C-alpha cells in the first residue's frame, strides 16, 4: 500500500537492539518527504474512520472528527531479553495473586500468619464474603489479567498497577498493529516482531481449560455493561474475535442453578463467562442490590460448580493498592521467592507516621485511593491547588486506611511521531497475562499516565503505541500458538440482538419510504387549498400521512408546526421533535445499531453513521439557505434514498446471511408490507375530508402512488399502459416479483422465519410462521376484480379534462379486506415479539422443570 521512497534496506539481517531499531525508524521517518508523511497520516485517518471504532459515537460530530490527537507512528520496541525478564516477573506476580485469592476465599491462612494485615482485606468492599468457600471445581481465580508498567529514569520497568478483576484494552493493540501494517508496511521489513493476532484464540483456550464438559462442548459468553461502557469497543471486538456472544445481564437467566442465554431459539446453556464487570455488579441478590447489569442467582451457579467465571468472583480484591504494598511478602509467603519485578514503594496512610511524612513532603507524592480506580481517585499532589489538597487531606484524615501514596516517578521518555512532528514522551505499558503460565506479546502502550487509558480510551486511541516485542534471532524463545483449531461452539443469536436488528430494519425502511413518498407528494398542490386539483391530490397527501403514522386528515387540519407546504419537507425529514421524521427514524436505527455493533460489519455502521450525522448537521443548520435549498429542490430526499440504498447494499454484501441478517429482513418486510397497504388504502379508498367520497380514481394519482412506492418501473414493465386501479392493487398486493408488494414481503418474512427456525422448530416456536402462512393464503384469495364493480355507461372522460383516465372506486368490502390485512400484520409483529424477542414464550419449561403449570 505504501510505496514511499526511501527504503528500509539498511537493516541488517540480524535483529538490531531496540534502541538501534528505534533510531532507524526515526531516521526512516525523518527521511520521508512531507507529502509522503501526510499521505501516511491521512491513510491512518481514513482507516480509523472506515473502521468506525476509533471515535466515540456519542461525541462524534463531523466538526470534531478532525480534532484527533494524531496517529503515533513510533512503535515501542522491547527486546527479547527484556521481555523475558518482564514475563518472568509478571508470571510470578499473577501466580502469587492467584494463590492469595484462593487462600483469602478459603482458610485465610496468610491473614492468620499475619503476613498481610487483615484490616486491608476485611475493610475492602471488594472482599466479597458471599464468594467465600465457593466449592467450584476449578482452583484458579485468574484467567486474563493485566499489569500497568512505567519506566523510571533509568529505563527500568516498574509495575504500577494490577488488574486482577477485569483486564481491558488488548484489542486496541491489535487494531493499532493492523493499521500500522497497512499504512507503514516498510517499518516492519526485516524485523521479527512477535505475533499478537491470536490473542483472542488464546483467551478462548484459557476459558476452555476452566470447563470440563462430558460432551467436550464449551459454551462461553462475554458479559459486559453494553455500549454505555467506555471500553465497549474492546469488549465487542474481543468477543467477535473469540467467536462468542457479547451479552448483558438481561440476556441471561438462572434456572435451577444453571446459567442460560435467552436466544431466538430458546434457552442455551452457558458454561463459562468472561466478565467485563466488577464482581459487585454481577449478582444483585448477593452483591450490590441496585445493579442493573448482573444476573440474579449467578452466584448459585458458581456455588454448584455449574458455571466458571473468568476471572473468578471476588478477584477484584487483588486490585487493592494497599495490598500491593505487601506483594513482596505475599510472593515470598506462597512461593518462597523474591519478587523479580520492582514496584514503587507504597506508603499506607493508615499509619500516622507515614501520614505525617506525606503531608510534610507532599509535592513528592502521588496519592491514590486504595480500591477506587480512575483519574478521580488519584492525585498528583504537586499539581494540586492548596484548597483541593486541604479537602483531600480532610478525607484522608477521616478514612486514612482508604488511601495510599507513592513517590511521583521521574519517567524515562520514548520517541513518538505524530502529524505534529516528533516528540519524546513517557509511556505506560499494559501487559496481559493468560492464566498462570503465559504473558501475551499482545501488549498495549500509550503516552500518558496510568488512568488515561480508562478515562476516554476511544478518543485517546491515537496515543496508543504499537508495541513491538522482538523475537530473538537465535530462536531460543518458543512461540506459543493457540490450541483452538475449530471454532468454539457458537451460541444462537440473543433475543436482545435480534430485537435490535428487527427494529433497525423497520426504522431504516420507514426512513426510506418516508423520503421516497415525500419526494413525490411535496410537489403536489397543498391539500387545504380550495381548488379542484388540490381536492384531487388529497388522497396522496393522506397516503403520506398514513404511512408516516399520522391521521389521514393530518394535512387538512394542519398543526401549528405545518402551516403550508413549505414546512412539510423539514417536518418529515429533519425535525428532531417529530418522532416519525427521517432524522428520528435514523436516530432510532442508529441507537439500536450502536448497542449491537459487533453483529454487523463496520461498513454498515459507517454508512448509517455518516447519513445520520449528515442529517443531524443539516437539522442543526435548518435556517440556512443551503438547507432550505436542498429541502426545496428535493436533492436531500434523493441523497437520503441513495444512501439508504447504499446501506442496504452494504448489508447485502458484507453481512453474513445468518440469523442476525434474517431478523433485519423481518423488520424491513414487516414495515414495508404495512406501509404499502396503508398507502394503497388511502389512494384507492379515499375519504376526501368533508366532501362527498370520490366516485373515481384518477390515473395520475395511481401513477404518483406507484412513484411513491418505487413501483412505476414495475408497473410499466408489466402493463405498458397507464395505471388503472385494479392492476395497481394487484401489483401492490399480490405480485410475486415486485419487492414492495404485500405478498412479496410476507413471503420474505416466511423465508426468514423458516431459515431461523431450521428444520425442526421447537414446539410452539413456529406460531408466527403459521400466522404468516395464513396471511399469505388470505392475501392470495383476494379476487381484486370482484371489489371493483364494472362501471356503466361512458364515464371514461374526465371531469377535470383530457388526459386523465379514471378507474372506478372499489366497494366498501375492499376497504374492510385491507383493514383485515393490516390487523393481521400488526398482530404478526406482536407474535414475533412474544416468541423471539420478549423471552416469554420461548422458555422451554418442560426440559428444565418438571412442575405443575405455574399459577
Amino acid at each position: 500500500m505504501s510505496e514511499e521512497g526511501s527504503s528500509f534496506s539498511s537493516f541488517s539481517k540480524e535483529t538490531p537492539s531496540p534502541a538501534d531499531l528505534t533510531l532507524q525508524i526515526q531516521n526512516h521517518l525523518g527521511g520521508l518527504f512531507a507529502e509522503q508523511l501526510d499521505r501516511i497520516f491521512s491513510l491512518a485517518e481514513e482507516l480509523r474512520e472506515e473502521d468506525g471504532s476509533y471515535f466515540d459515537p456519542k461525541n462524534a460530530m463531523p466538526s470534531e472528527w478532525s480534532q484527533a490527537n494524531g496517529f503515533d507512528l513510533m512503535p515501542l520496541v522491547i527486546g527479547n531479553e527484556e521481555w523475558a525478564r518482564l514475563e518472568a516477573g509478571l508470571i510470578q506476580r499473577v501466580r502469587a495473586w492467584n494463590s492469595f485469592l484462593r487462600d483469602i476465599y478459603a482458610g485465610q491462612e496468610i491473614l492468620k500468619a499475619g503476613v498481610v494485615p487483615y484490616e486491608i482485606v476485611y475493610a475492602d468492599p471488594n472482599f466479597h464474603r458471599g464468594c467465600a468457600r465457593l466449592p467450584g471445581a476449578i482452583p484458579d481465580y485468574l484467567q486474563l489479567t493485566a499489569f500497568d508498567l512505567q519506566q523510571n529514569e533509568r529505563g527500568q520497568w516498574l509495575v504500577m498497577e494490577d488488574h486482577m478483576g477485569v483486564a481491558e484494552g488488548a484489542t486496541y493493540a491489535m487494531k493499532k498493529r493492523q493499521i500500522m501494517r497497512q499504512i507503514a508496511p516498510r517499518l516492519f521489513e526485516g524485523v521479527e516482531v512477535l505475533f499478537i493476532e491470536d490473542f483472542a484464540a488464546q483467551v478462548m483456550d484459557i476459558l476452555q481449560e476452566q470447563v470440563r464438559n462430558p460432551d467436550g462442548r464449551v459454551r462461553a459468553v462475554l458479559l459486559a455493561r453494553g455500549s454505555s461502557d467506555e471500553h465497549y469497543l474492546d469488549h465487542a471486538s474481543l468477543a467477535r474475535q473469540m467467536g462468542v456472544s457479547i451479552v448483558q445481564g438481561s440476556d441471561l437467566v438462572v434456572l435451577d442453578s444453571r446459567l442460560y442465554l435467552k436466544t431466538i431459539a430458546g434457552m442455551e446453556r452457558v458454561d463459562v463467562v468472561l466478565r467485563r464487570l466488577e464482581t459487585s455488579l454481577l449478582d444483585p441478590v448477593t452483591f450490590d442490590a441496585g445493579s442493573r447489569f448482573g444476573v440474579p442467582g449467578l452466584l448459585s451457579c458458581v456455588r454448584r460448580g455449574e458455571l466458571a467465571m473468568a476471572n473468578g468472583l471476588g478477584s477484584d480484591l487483588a486490585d487493592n493498592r494497599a495490598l500491593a504494598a505487601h506483594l513482596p511478602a505475599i510472593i515470598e509467603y506462597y512461593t518462597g521467592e523474591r519478587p523479580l519485578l520492582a514496584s514503587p514503594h507504597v506508603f499506607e496512610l493508615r499509619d500516622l507516621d507515614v501520614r505525617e511524612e506525606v503531608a510534610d513532603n507532599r509535592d513528592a507524592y502521588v496519592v491514590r485511593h486504595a480500591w477506587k480506580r480512575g483519574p478521580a481517585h488519584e492525585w498528583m499532589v504537586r499539581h494540586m491547588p492548596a484548597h483541593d489538597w486541604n479537602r483531600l487531606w480532610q478525607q484522608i484524615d477521616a478514612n486514612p486506611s482508604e488511601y495510599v501514596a507513592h513517590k511521583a516517578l521521574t519517567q524515562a521518555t520514548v520517541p513518538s511521531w505524530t502529524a505534529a512532528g516528533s516528540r519524546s514522551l513517557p509511556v505506560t505499558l499494559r501487559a496481559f497475562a493468560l492464566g498462570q503460565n503465559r504473558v501475551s506479546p499482545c501488549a498495549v502502550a500509550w503516552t500518558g499516565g496510568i488512568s488515561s487509558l480508562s478515562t476516554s480510551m476511544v478518543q485517546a486511541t491515537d496515543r496508543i503505541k504499537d508495541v513491538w516485542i522482538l523475537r530473538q534471532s537465535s530462536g531460543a524463545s518458543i512461540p506459543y500458538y493457540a490450541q483452538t483449531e475449530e471454532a468454539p461452539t457458537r451460541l444462537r443469536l440473543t433475543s436482545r440482538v435480534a430485537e435490535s436488528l428487527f427494529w433497525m430494519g423497520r426504522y431504516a425502511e420507514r426512513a426510506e419510504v418516508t423520503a421516497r413518498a415525500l419526494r413525490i407528494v411535496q410537489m403536489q398542490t397543498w391539500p387545504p387549498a380550495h381548488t379542484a386539483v388540490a381536492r384531487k391530490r388529497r388522497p396522496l397527501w393522506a397516503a403520506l400521512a398514513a404511512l408516516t403514522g399520522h391521521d389521514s386528515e393530518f394535512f387538512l387540519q394542519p398543526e401549528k408546526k405545518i402551516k403550508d407546504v413549505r414546512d412539510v419537507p423539514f417536518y418529515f425529514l429533519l425535525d428532531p421533535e417529530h418522532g416519525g421524521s427521517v432524522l428520528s427514524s435514523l436516530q432510532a436505527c442508529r441507537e439500536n445499531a450502536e448497542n449491537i455493533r459487533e453483529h454487523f460489519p463496520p461498513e454498515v455502521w459507517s454508512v448509517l453513521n455518516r447519513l445520520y450525522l449528515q442529517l443531524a448537521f443539516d437539522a442543526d443548520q435548518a435556517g440556512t439557505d443551503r438547507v432550505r435549498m436542498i429541502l426545496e429542490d428535493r436533492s436531500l430526499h434523493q441523497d437520503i434514498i441513495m444512501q439508504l440504498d447504499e446501506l442496504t447494499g452494504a448489508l447485502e454484501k458484507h453481512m453474513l446471511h445468518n440469523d442476525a441478517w434474517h431478523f433485519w429482513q423481518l423488520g424491513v418486510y414487516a414495515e414495508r408490507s404495512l406501509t404499502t397497504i396503508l398507502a394503497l388504502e388511502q389512494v384507492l379508498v379515499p375519504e376526501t375530508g368533508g366532501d362527498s367520497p370520490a366516485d373515481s380514481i384518477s390515473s395520475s394519482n395511481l401513477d404518483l402512488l406507484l412513484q411513491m412506492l418505487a413501483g412505476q418501473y414495475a408497473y410499466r414493465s408489466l402493463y405498458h399502459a397507464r395505471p388503472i386501479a385494479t392492476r395497481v392493487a394487484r401489483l401492490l398486493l399480490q405480485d410475486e416479483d415486485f419487492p414492495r408488494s404485500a405478498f412479496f414481503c410476507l413471503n420474505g418474512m416466511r423465508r426468514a422465519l423458516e431459515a431461523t427456525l431450521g428444520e425442526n422448530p421447537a414446539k410452539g416456536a413456529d406460531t408466527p410462521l403459521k400466522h404468516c402462512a395464513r396471511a399469505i393464503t388470505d392475501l392470495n384469495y383476494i379476487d381484486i376484480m370482484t371489489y371493483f364493480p364494472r362501471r356503466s355507461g361512458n364515464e371514461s372522460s374526465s371531469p377535470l379534462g383530457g388526459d386523465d383516465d379514471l378507474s372506478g372506486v372499489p366497494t366498501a368490502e375492499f376497504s374492510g379486506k385491507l383493514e383485515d390485512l393490516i390487523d393481521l400484520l400488526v398482530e404478526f409483529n406482536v407474535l414475533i415479539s412474544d416468541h423471539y424477542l420478549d423471552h416469554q414464550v420461548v422458555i422451554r419449561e418442560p426440559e428444565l422443570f418438571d412442575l405443575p403449570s405455574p399459577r
Partner: protein
Amino acid sequence: MIFNIVHNTSYEYSAPAIESFTELRVRPRQSNLQNILHHVTEVNPRVPLEEFTDYYGNTVECLSVPFRHKCLSVTSRSTVETMPRKDALSGLDLTVSEAVRLNWPQRRLLFDYLMPSLHAPFTPELEALSKQCLPSSGSFADSILALNSFIYNQFTYMPGVTDVRTPLAEVLRTRQGVCQDFAHLMIALIRCAGLPARYVSGYIETNSSGDPDALTGATASHAWVEVYLPSGFWLGIDPTNEILEGERHVQIGVGRDYHDVSPLRGVFKGPERQELSVAVTVSRTTGQSVPFGA
C-alpha cells in the same frame, strides 16, 4: 422449652412477575443454646430449593422461578428446643476499656463486628452517645445492661414508622422504631466503644393474650443483638424488651446487620408494585418430651 414456629411470607405482585430469584434465611440455626428438632421450607410456586451455608454460618436456601407468577409464598415450619441460659454477665468484673483490651487477641475474627456496617454506621452523634452510655472506665456488665434499659426507656416501639431503609440518624431523632432499629442502634453504640456486636435475626414467643410476661416484637420475625464477652461467649441482649436473650428467643441467623441476615431477599422482573405479607406464629408445645440432642 419447645416451640412450633410457622413463618409465612407472601409476595403478591400487581401483575405477573416474569422471573424471580430469591434467597431465604428462615431456617433456625443449630447451636448449643437451641436444638432444631424439625425444619421444612415450603415454597409456592413449587420449585426446587438449593441450600448452602453463608460466610457467617447461616443456612441459606435459594430458589428461582423462571416463569410468570402472580405471587410467591414461602412457609418455614420449625420445631425448636431452647435451653436455659447461664448468667454470663455477673461474673465479669471488668471495665469497658479492659474488655476492649481483652478482646484484642481475637481482633481478626471479630473485625467484621467491630467495624461500622451498612445499617450500623458511625456518626459523630452515635460516637458521642456511645461515650456517654459506655464510658471506658465504667463497668462493662453494668454499662451493657444500662444501655439495654436506655434504649428500652428512651425509645418508643412503634411499628410502621420506619422501614429497612430508615437511617439510624432518623431513629435517633424521632426516638421511635421497631426491634430492627433498636438492634442497629445498639450495635452501632457498642461498636463505637470498640466492642464487638452482631445482629441476630430470629423469633420470640410473645403470648400477647393478657399474659403478664408478654413480650414485644413478634407479629413478624424479631431482631436483637449479641455482644462479645471477653470470656469468649456471645451474649444475647434484646433492647426491645429490656431483657437478655432467654429460652423464649429462637435464633435464625447472625451477621453484621440486617443486610447479612434478611429473611427473604430476591430480585424479580416484572411489575413495579408488590405487596408483602408476613405472618409468624410461635407456639409452645406442651407435655412433649423430646430427649436432649435428638
